[in-house]
C-alpha cells in the first residue's frame, strides 16, 4: 500500500500556493480556449476577403495520363499518409468557372506564382482564373484595364436601355393584355393584335440590344494557352493578384468586405454576400425585443409588486426560472405546432379563407420566429427585471407613497426607472441568446434562401409573414458545404465572424445604455 501524506510533502504556504496555481492554471486554459476560438474565427473569417495569389500549376494528370497546366489557388494544404497534398481551386478550358482537385506532391511538377493571371469574378458569384488577353467587339483589341472599363461602361449603358424597355413598355403591354383576359375579350380581337404587335416590336428591339451587348467579349487565356470567351455582361470585376501592391490588396480586401455585406448569396450560399441574412437576423431580433420587453417587464412587475406572497406565486416564479433551461428545439416545435399551425391556421381560416388551401399566415415566417424567440427569452427578461425591481430601496417607495402617490404612480415614476438597468440587463441577455439561436428558427421561419427581404417597397412594406434568412442558419448550411466545397467553408468562417460582430455590437449598445441608466439611477 502506498500511502503518501501530502501534508508532509508541502509546507502550509506551499499548499496555499499550490491551490492558487491549480486555479490559475484552469483560468489560463479557459483564456486560451477563448482566445484560440476568437483568433481562429477572426483569421479564417478575414482570410476569406484577402486576395489570395494565383499559381501556375503543372501536374501529371493520372486520368489523362499526361502533363497538364492550370491556373489555381491553394485552398488548403496538409499531409496525409506521409504524402503532402494541396487542395486546389483551378480554372481550365473544360471548367473555366472553377473546379477543385486534391493534388499529391508526387504528381506535382511545379507550382509557381503567376504574375499575369487575373481573378475574374462573374456576376453569378463564380470565378474564372486566367490571363485577360483580348477584348472582342467587331475586331480584337489587346486587353488593357482602361479599355476594359470603357467597354464595361458601354455594356452597362446597353443593359440600362434593355431594363428601361422592359419596365416602361413590356410590363405595360403585359398588364393591358391581362386586363383584356379578365374582360373576356376574344383571342382574335383587334385590340389584342395591336398589343401583340407592339409587344413583338419591343421584343425585337430588346433582342437586337442583347445581341449588341453580347458582342462585347473578353477572351481569357488559360494556362495551357487555350482561350475562353466570357461575355462582358457577365463580369463583375477583374483584378490581377500578382500585380497588386500592398495598397491594392487592401483595396480589394475592403471591397470584398463591402460586397459581402451588401450582396445577396450566390451559388447556393457558397459565394456572394450575406446581406439578406444579416438583415433578417437583426430584424428578427428587433421584432423579438419589441415583443419580449413589454411582456417580460409587465409580468415581472406583477410578480414582484402586486402578486400576493403565496404558494401560487412561488410556483409561477419557479416555473419561469425553469423555462429558461428548456431546450431551444422544444420551443421551435412549440412555435411550429402552436403559432404556425394552430394560430396561423386559424387566422387563415378566419381572415384569408379565399386563398386557402395556400396558407397566408399558417406558414413559417419572421413574425412567428420572433414570437417563438420571445417565448424562449421571456424567462431571462422576467428574472432580470424582478432582480432589478427587488433592488429598488423600500425607503424610496415609502417616500413616494408619503407624497400621496398611489401604487401605480410609484411603480411607473420611481420603481420602473430605477429598475431600468436590471431590465436592460435582461434584454441584453435576451438579444444575445436570440441572435445566436438556430435550431428553433429553422422550424418556424428561417430558410437557406429567401427570394425577398421581409421589408421592401411594396405595401404594407413590412412583410413579417415572409420567410427570412438568418446568419446562424447560413453558418449551419455552410458547415455542411464545407465537406464538399472549399469556398463554402471559407464563407462559413466569414459569416461566423459577422454573427459574432452583430451579437457583440448589440451587446455593446445595450451595455452602454445600461451604464448610462445605472449612472442616472444609482442610489448612494
Amino acid at each position, binding site marked *: 500500500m502506498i500511502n503518501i501524506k501530502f501534508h508532509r510533502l508541502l509546507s502550509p504556504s506551499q499548499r496555499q500556493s499550490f491551490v492558487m496555481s491549480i486555479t490559475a492554471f484552469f483560468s489560463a486554459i479557459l483564456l486560451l480556449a477563448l482566445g484560440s476560438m476568437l483568433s481562429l474565427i477572426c483569421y479564417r473569417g478575414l482570410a476569406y476577403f484577402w486576395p489570395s495569389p494565383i499559381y501556375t500549376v503543372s501536374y501529371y494528370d493520372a486520368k489523362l495520363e499526361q502533363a497538364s497546366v492550370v491556373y489555381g489557388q491553394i485552398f488548403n494544404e496538409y499531409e496525409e499518409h506521409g504524402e503532402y497534398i494541396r487542395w486546389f481551386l483551378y480554372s481550365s478550358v473544360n471548367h473555366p468557372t472553377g473546379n477543385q482537385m486534391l493534388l499529391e506532391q508526387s504528381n506535382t511538377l511545379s507550382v509557381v506564382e503567376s504574375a499575369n493571371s487575373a481573378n475574374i469574378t462573374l456576376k453569378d458569384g463564380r470565378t474564372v482564373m486566367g490571363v485577360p488577353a483580348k477584348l472582342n467587339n467587331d475586331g480584337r483589341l489587346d486587353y488593357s484595364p482602361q479599355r476594359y472599363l470603357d467597354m464595361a461602361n458601354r455594356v452597362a449603358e446597353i443593359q440600362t436601355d434593355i431594363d428601361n424597355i422592359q419596365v416602361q413598355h413590356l410590363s405595360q403591354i403585359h398588364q393591358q393584355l391581362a386586363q383584356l383576359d379578365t374582360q373576356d375579350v376574344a383571342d382574335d380581337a383587334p385590340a389584342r393584335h395591336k398589343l401583340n404587335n407592339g409587344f413583338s416590336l419591343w421584343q425585337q428591339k430588346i433582342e437586337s440590344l442583347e445581341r449588341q451587348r453580347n458582342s462585347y467579349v473578353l477572351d481569357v487565356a488559360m494556362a495551357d494557352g487555350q482561350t475562353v470567351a466570357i461575355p462582358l455582361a457577365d463580369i463583375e470585376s477583374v483584378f490581377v493578384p500578382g500585380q497588386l501592391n500592398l495598397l491594392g490588396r487592401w483595396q480589394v480586401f475592403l471591397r470584398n468586405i463591402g460586397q459581402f455585406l451588401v450582396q445577396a448569396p450566390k451559388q447556393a450560399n457558397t459565394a456572394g454576400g450575406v446581406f439578406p441574412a444579416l438583415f433578417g437576423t437583426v430584424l428578427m431580433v428587433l421584432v423579438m425585443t419589441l415583443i419580449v420587453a413589454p411582456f417580460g417587464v409587465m409580468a415581472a412587475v406583477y410578480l414582484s409588486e402586486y402578486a400576493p406572497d403565496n404558494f401560487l406565486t412561488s410556483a409561477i416564479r419557479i416555473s419561469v426560472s425553469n423555462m429558461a433551461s428548456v431546450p431551444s428545439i422544444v420551443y421551435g416545435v412549440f412555435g411550429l405546432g402552436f403559432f404556425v399551425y394552430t394560430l396561423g391556421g386559424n387566422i387563415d381560416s378566419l381572415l384569408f379563407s379565399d386563398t386557402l388551401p395556400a396558407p397566408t399566415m399558417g406558414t413559417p415566417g419572421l413574425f412567428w420566429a420572433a414570437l417563438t424567440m420571445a417565448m424562449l427569452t421571456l424567462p431571462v427578461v422576467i428574472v432580470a427585471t424582478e432582480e432589478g425591481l427587488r433592488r429598488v430601496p423600500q425607503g*424610496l*417607495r*415609502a417616500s413616494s407613497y408619503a407624497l*400621496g*402617490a398611489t401604487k401605480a404612480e410609484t411603480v411607473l415614476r420611481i420603481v420602473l426607472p430605477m429598475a431600468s438597468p436590471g431590465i436592460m440587463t435582461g434584454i441584453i441577455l435576451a438579444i444575445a441568446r436570440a441572435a445566436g439561436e438556430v435550431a428553433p428558427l429553422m422550424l418556424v421561419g428561417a430558410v437557406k434562401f429567401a427570394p425577398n427581404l421581409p421589408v421592401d417597397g411594396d405595401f404594407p412594406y413590412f412583410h413579417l409573414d415572409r420567410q427570412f434568412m438568418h446568419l446562424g442558419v447560413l453558418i449551419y448550411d455552410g458547415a455542411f458545404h464545407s465537406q464538399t466545397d472549399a469556398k463554402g467553408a471559407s464563407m462559413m468562417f466569414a459569416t461566423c465572424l459577422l454573427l459574432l460582430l452583430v451579437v457583440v455590437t448589440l451587446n455593446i449598445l445595450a451595455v452602454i445604455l445600461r451604464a448610462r441608466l445605472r449612472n442616472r439611477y444609482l442610489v448612494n
Partner: protein
Amino acid sequence: MLKLFEHETLDVHNLGDEETAIGVKDLSLQFGQKPVLQNISLRIPKHRITALIGQSGCGKSTLISSFNRMNDLVPDCQYTGGIFINGRNINDKREDVSQLRTQVGIVFQRPNPFPMSIYDNVSYGLRLKGIKVRRYLDDAVEQALKEAALWDEVKDRLFDSARILSGGQQQRLVIARALALKPDILLLDEPTSALDPLTTLFIEELMAGLKKRCTIVIVTHNMQQAARVSDYTAFLHQGQLVEYADSDTLFTMPEFKQTEDYITGRYG
C-alpha cells in the same frame, strides 16, 4: 425678552377641538399577532412641536406612521380606534389615503431623494396632483426650498441630480419635498439621527421656523433634542403612553418613575 418668542403653555390633557391637530382615541395596533400600540389616547396641539420619545421598539415610529396611514404598507397590520384630523377619522375605510398624505407629510430617518433632479424631487408631489403649469411649479419649488433653508445652496443647480447633495442637504431636500404640498402636519421620524451635530442644529432651527406654518410631530432618541426643540413631549413604553406633558415639565419634573428612569438614562 425671551418670553416673547415662547408660546403660552397649553394643558394637553384638556385640549379643545379647535386647538387639536391630531386627536388619537383608543388606538391599538398590531402587526400580525404582535401588539405594538395599546389603547393610546392623546391630543397633539396645533402649531406646536410635539416630540415622541421612548426605547427602540416602543412603538413611537409606528404611532407617527399611523398619522398618515403609512402602516397600511406593512402586510398584516391591523388597528382599532380613531385618529381625528380636521374632524375626520382617518382610520375610516373610506378615507382618501393619497389626499391624507398630501396633508400630513412625513420625513424618514435616512434621507432618500428620488433619483431625479432637485427640481423634480421637490415638484414630485405637485405633479402627482396633476399640476403641470410651469410657473406655478417654479414658484412652489422656490418657496418650498426657501422654507427648508436650502434655496441659497441649490438655486444655481436645480436641474442637477439630487444625489450630489450632502447628507444634510438631502434631508432638507426631503423636507422641502414634503413642504411643497403645503401640509398641515409634518411628521419627522428621527430626521437627524443620520446627520452630524452641526447639520442637526441646522434642521432644529428649521423646525422652529416651520412651527408657524404647520404642526410638527418628531420622533427622536436624543433627549437633548427633544428638550431643545419640542413644546410637548410624549413618553411611550412598550406600546403604551406613559406620560404626556409640556416638555419643561416632563424633563424637569416627570410624574412617573419610568419616565425619569428613561430620561436620566437608566435604561434605553
